[in-house]
């Protein structure tokens, strides 16, 4: 497991983990130890909000892994995120048990009033946490495997790939909107009660979920960092910049692409699974192509091919969204749209690029974008 230890020998990773740890500790402390009247008190509402940002950050890291290092602009990562979310949502639905409105121990409420006789086969097993958590990774992983296998095998690349990933998530959105699918249609899954026996409506559970998101982000980050820093990571960068050359060196490029794509999809699924219990609902709008494009913006804003840039981008944009939709709802779409334009035209290397310029990092981390290869 030498390759997994590699990130811990990098300064940038240690700094990142340190900052993350500090932030987690600070928020926890300010929530637990400070009395509510105190101005420094962080309410559970804010903790919850940060938990959401952290799961988004993990999602952004997953997207950066494929876009930044593999050059695959996936406009469908929301699909993997949502699938992970649905797997978690199904588990949480089953945890309601007979406490639903109709008191049916097997069927979730929405199935009862839409006259389902019995639980569909694909809902089986989701009452068991281990199975559901496994599916959180497997469901998006398998979809990515199938989709990636087909796409990479026939060398669908660049714009074409982006567009069919968009088609994928769009088709899934339409499918999940259908009530016959048995996922609650437009209403999705909601009204969750508990997770692993902990009451979802208690502050402690929320704090726990926040910390879990932080931990997942740390693990996901280290994993991605390890991949990127390994020789495999360099093969990815090689593929991104000169696919044919890599192939002629004897690497089965499509398999590398598939591997990384699947890992990324699983991380996105994990992010979705952490997101759902914190926001309390999963519905097909997470599949919307718009959301997937937005994720890409987080990464672009933060800085492609740096991983930590993705985290910065996700938190910045979502924080801005929280503030803006509160203060000037009309301005939000203007600023979001403006961000897209400005970042791509003026800041091709994102905030991370600015930081790097500022601090003049010594040496180059492998695979970072230089000059013209910013183009995909």
């Amino acid at each position, binding site marked *: 497991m030498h390759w997994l230890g590699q990130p811990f020998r990098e300064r940038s990773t240690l700094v990142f983990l340190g900052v993350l740890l500090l932030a987690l500790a600070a928020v926890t402390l300010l929530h637990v130890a400070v009395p509510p009247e105190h101005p420094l008190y962080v309410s559970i509402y804010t903790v919850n909000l940060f938990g959401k940002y952290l799961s988004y950050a993990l999602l952004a890291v997953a997207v950066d892994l494929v876009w930044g290092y593999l050059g695959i602009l996936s406009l469908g990562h929301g699909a993997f995120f949502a699938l992970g979310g649905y797997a978690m949502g199904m588990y949480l639905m089953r945890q309601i048990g007979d406490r639903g409105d109709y008191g049916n121990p097997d069927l979730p409420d929405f199935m009862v009033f839409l006259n389902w006789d019995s639980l569909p086969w694909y809902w089986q097993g989701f009452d068991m946490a281990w199975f559901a958590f496994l599916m959180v990774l497997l469901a998006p992983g398998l979809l990515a495997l199938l989709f990636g296998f087909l796409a990479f095998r026939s060398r669908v690349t660049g714009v074409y790939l982006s567009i069919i990933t968009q088609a994928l998530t769009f088709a899934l959105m339409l499918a999940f909107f259908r009530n016959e699918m048995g996922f609650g249609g437009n209403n999705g899954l909601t009204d969750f009660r508990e997770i692993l026996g902990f009451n979802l409506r208690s502050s402690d559970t929320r704090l726990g979920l926040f910390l879990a998101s932080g931990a997942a982000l740390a693990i996901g980050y280290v994993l991605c960092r390890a991949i990127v820093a390994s020789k495999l990571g360099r093969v990815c960068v090689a593929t991104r910049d000169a696919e*044919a050359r890599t192939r002629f060196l*004897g690497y089965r490029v499509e398999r*590398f692409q598939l591997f990384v794509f699947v890992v990324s999809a699983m991380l996105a699924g994990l992010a979705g699974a952490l997101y759902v219990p914190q926001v309390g609902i999963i519905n097909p709008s997470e599949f919307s192509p718009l959301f997937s494009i937005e994720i890409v913006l987080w990464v672009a804003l933060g800085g492609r091919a740096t991983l930590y840039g993705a985290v910065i981008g996700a938190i910045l944009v979502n924080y801005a969204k929280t503030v803006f939709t509160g203060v000037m709802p009309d301005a939000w779409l203007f600023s979001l749209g403006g961000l897209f334009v400005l970042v791509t035209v003026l800041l091709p290397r994102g905030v991370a690029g600015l930081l790097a310029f500022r601090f003049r990092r010594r040496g180059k981390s492998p695979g970072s974008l230089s000059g013209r290869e910013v183009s995909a």
Partner: protein
Amino acid sequence: MSILGSLASRDRVFDFLVPADSPVDVRHGPILYLEDVTVSFDGFKAIDTLNLTIDDGELRCIIGPNGAGKTTMMDIITGKTRPDSGKVWFGSRHDLLTMSEPQIASLGIGRKFQKPTVFEALSVFENLELAMAADKRILPTLTARMTGEIRERIDEVLLTIGLVEQRQRSASILSHGQKQWLEIGMLLMQRPRLLLVDEPVAGMTEQEMERTAELLTGLAGKQSVVVVEHDMGFVRSIARKVTVLHQGSVLAEGSMDQVASDPRVVEVYLGAEAEEELA
């Protein structure tokens, strides 16, 4: 493997020049064999019933005017383009038409592109590291460790291609000629049985050209080398056997002098200017 250990075994200095244990069977003849290969794009025949054999250890130069089908021929050998008809064999055991590019590459066919193609986001060292013959499946690649032995081999190639100084530099800042060499270096790291080299000296100074010629002739014998080149001076300086392609098939084949005196070749190269060049 410790550095000390590898230092002790100095007899393995030219290890990277020794062909890898390739399953290629050349006991019964040539290493590369093309028969009646034809490929057309939108009705235009880029390669027309091409027949070509390369012997094991041979250094072959291929010349021909623009559009003669040189690059397309390389595309076919390396699996990038599939011909409409014909046979392509590597040794007497491997039908290249059934294989993918990475498979062909791991059989021991290395290719240098017309336009130098190196990984600009990586350092020179990393470029060579990726090219090195190794287990190129996913997990071994993920868990690959940098050993002293590898480092040493890379250093040796660096020395050969004269890029020791640039070792940790990004490949994007190399000059054109340096990129050509780096790419050749990457081929060397692959330890191929057959090298396909497309215009290796384009954009090089006289001096650089000489070194390249040295390098290529040095390789021949142990490995088979196919060089496609426009620069007649360079071809003359290295060539033992020359093949002239024209309109997708072989026009003439033989020593440089034989070929140069072939009237058909002269005609193809359009009159006096070409004659002058060939002479």
